[in-house]
């Protein structure tokens, strides 16, 4: 086994302070899934193309597989588990209404990406949504229903 020094750091994950102990080579995805039990973010390609590992870091989209956890102290991480409270988030509702989920393996990544997009562009155009999704791949839906969900008008009852 490796004998490099472990790192201890504080980060906020889904609003909760976490003290994380990890080895330098662990990606944020490794830490989320294996140490914090947050398995919503998925391992897809491992090299920053498929986006199945998408999380928000200080509100901005990032590929968790391309970041070393030990460099992220004091950051605010949001995973798919942090998007829904007792009710589903409006992006999640749109996904269900638009039929944007098939096998679902990419879904957490897309839901988080689109949440990130709509945080700064509340009602994106189709062109904006498609361009924003350069870091997410879906092999089931042809992206069509996902883009419809991304551009769905804000539901005043659900919007956060």
């Amino acid at each position, binding site marked *: 086994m490796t004998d490099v020094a472990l790192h201890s750091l504080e980060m906020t994950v889904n609003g909760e302070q976490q003290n994380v102990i990890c080895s330098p080579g662990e990606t944020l995805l490794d830490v989320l899934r294996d140490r914090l039990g947050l398995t919503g973010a*998925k391992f897809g390609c491992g*090299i920053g193309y498929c986006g*199945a590992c998408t999380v928000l870091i200080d509100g901005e989209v990032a590929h968790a597989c391309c970041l070393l956890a030990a460099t992220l102290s004091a950051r605010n991480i949001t995973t798919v588990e942090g998007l829904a409270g007792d009710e*589903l988030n409006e992006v999640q509702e749109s996904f*269900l209404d638009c039929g944007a*989920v098939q096998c*679902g393996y990419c879904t957490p990544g897309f839901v988080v990406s689109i949440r990130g997009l709509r945080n700064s562009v509340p009602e994106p155009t189709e062109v904006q949504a498609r361009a924003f999704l*350069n870091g997410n791949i879906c*092999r*089931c839906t042809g992206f069509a229903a996902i883009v419809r969900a991304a551009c769905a008008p804000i539901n005043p009852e659900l919007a956060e």
Partner: protein
Amino acid sequence: MTELRAVGHPHRRVDGEDKVTGRADYLSDMVLDSMLYGAAVRSPYPRALVRSIDTTEALAMDGVHAVVTPESTEGLPSLRIFADSPPVQRIITANPNFVGDVVAAVAADTLELARKAVLRIDVDYEVLPPILSVEHAATGEIQLHDAAPENRAGPVIAIERGDPEAQLATCDHVFRDSYTTQRQAAQTIESLVCICDWIDGPELKVWTHLDSMFHFRDALAEAVGLDPERVIIQPPPNLGATFGLKNSLIAGLEPLAALLSREAGRPVKLVLSPDESMSATVTRHPATIELVTGVNADGKIVARTADLVLDSGAYGWGYVVALSMLGKWATLYRCDDIRFTATSLYTNHVPGGAYRSVGTAQIHFAMESQIDEVARSLNLDPVELHRQNLVRAGDRLSMGTEIRSLGVDECLDQGAAAFGWEGPRHPDGAAAPIARPLDVTRGVGMAVGMHHSGLTGLIPHPEGATCTAEVTNDLNFLIRVGVVEKGQGSSTTLTLVAAEELGVDPGRVAVLNTGTATAPLDYNGAEASRTTYIVGRAVADAARRLGEAIEKAGSVAAVVGEVVEGNFVPDDKDPLPVIGAHFCEVEVDHVTGVVRVLRYIAAQDVGRVINVLGCRGQIEGGVHHGLGYALCEELLFDEGQPINSNFMGYKVLMAADMPEIEAVLVEVPDPDGGPYGAKGVGTPVIPAIAPAVANAIRDAIGARLHHLPMSPPKVLAAIVSNEQAGSPQLLG
């Protein structure tokens, strides 16, 4: 059309909420008690002999619990995919036949450790000269497998009807064209994983990506030397898609994990990396296709011949794919004088297997491209030329079934209307504007695609499904099925069917698959778009019977605990034929050869829409695979080495590349098809796509591409040829 309350109305997926919240677990998330992790030692050579394997260093590592080698497969049969396939593949081989072929494997405490141990296994190879092309395979200079003389992956598929040569000699026009298609990989976002638990000697429990449970169980049982009842296949909680990849056993996955588990005495989770998942499983068969078509001036097709060679890779499906191609090629156009010959050959590449729309993708690219060229030559609208020659209801399929329902004209009409089709924008012979080298030009194209729903007559095992229906203690309804929900939405579709038959809200119905030990038999599973059709009919049957039992007993409560069976066995000798007509518009950049698909209309005859969101989703998703096949997807090899088997190098289209897609759900119900006349959609959507795009490019640039994928270098080369042939304006 009868008004229905649940069927045909938008309904949220039954598993949707779990998926959007991240609660849904997949194989990748599953951890069993005392589970180990497996990794494979793979041949770095396309062809070699293993002289010796030294496993001492790996076995000595702390945390390594088992190592298996070819010796571990002694007494086990070589795998035979289909009845007439040569038995050529070993689970662990001392004669690797492709880069990635498994020569040993390890089980250890962690995945990292297993992968490290793989590096400590010392394999001594004698490198052998490989066969890297079908041309070389055909020479017979090297025979790859003892059981496959002339490197044939099963018998040559050949038929002849009438006298095509005589017709070709006398008809008005003869068209001769050659086409090639490439290796396409499924590239599921979830890489393949399986968990095997060979418990207490005689019983093997398996969780894996798969398309069918029972067929798979039998194949796996035979592979590892167990009776089928001793193998228990459990559906994973959720499955990250297959696109047909798991229609059959993959030697380097479940059988390998099973052997590791037996050796270690503990459950083993074998995890393929994204690279292995693409380069060491199965791909679509590449094909070389030569078509000769004889036509009269009025557009009537009077003779057709086809000569094909399929590259089956090291151990692939071969002749079965050719059979599927024959079925579609021979049926799509009415013609009495035809000849078809298809040879499938083994080469030292990743095996060819099933991939969404087996065989039909390749043959349609060829035949629908050629028919478009015929239309252009005769100055006929391709829609009308299709109308004149296509198969119709009343014609007969390969095994003799009379076609009851086929929405040919409906798809052509509705697709053309949705698109605003007025024929090609730049017909040949018209005064076409000469494109300047830096121009961007547009073109339109259409194509028809036919595939099948169900497997009747295509495989030895009889088609059919069983299921059960019951009232639960909380007075809701439970349907037990033997088919796996692999993401395409079958659980939701079957829920809607049951709810409709029972006359209840879909929220009160649950569809459950509990694995081969306890689930009702559905032998063929989620393959060939048969779930809605075949399993749907069984579910409708069970739900109807349960409804009758409730009526007879007087109340729902009175029937709690009573399990009612349903089943369906098709009377037909052929699967249901399913047709679609697609229309597309492209824009081609003459600077770069890049093709942008602007609009895409897919009119598919779905029989009857049951799950409208699912149906549309399957069409839109299918268009993604088809456009990738047409434009940019290709698994590349260099001297037998895969060079782009990862998410960076293997290109699938992104959201920003995709056109506006309109799925036109054409309903021409089949009275003896799926529930309410439904047909399949997931695979039939594929075949028309690549030729529709090819035909639009032809319209846009005045030159036809015969080789897939139609990548920018090929498009630009065609543009330049055309410029040099016809245009006075050259660059530089």
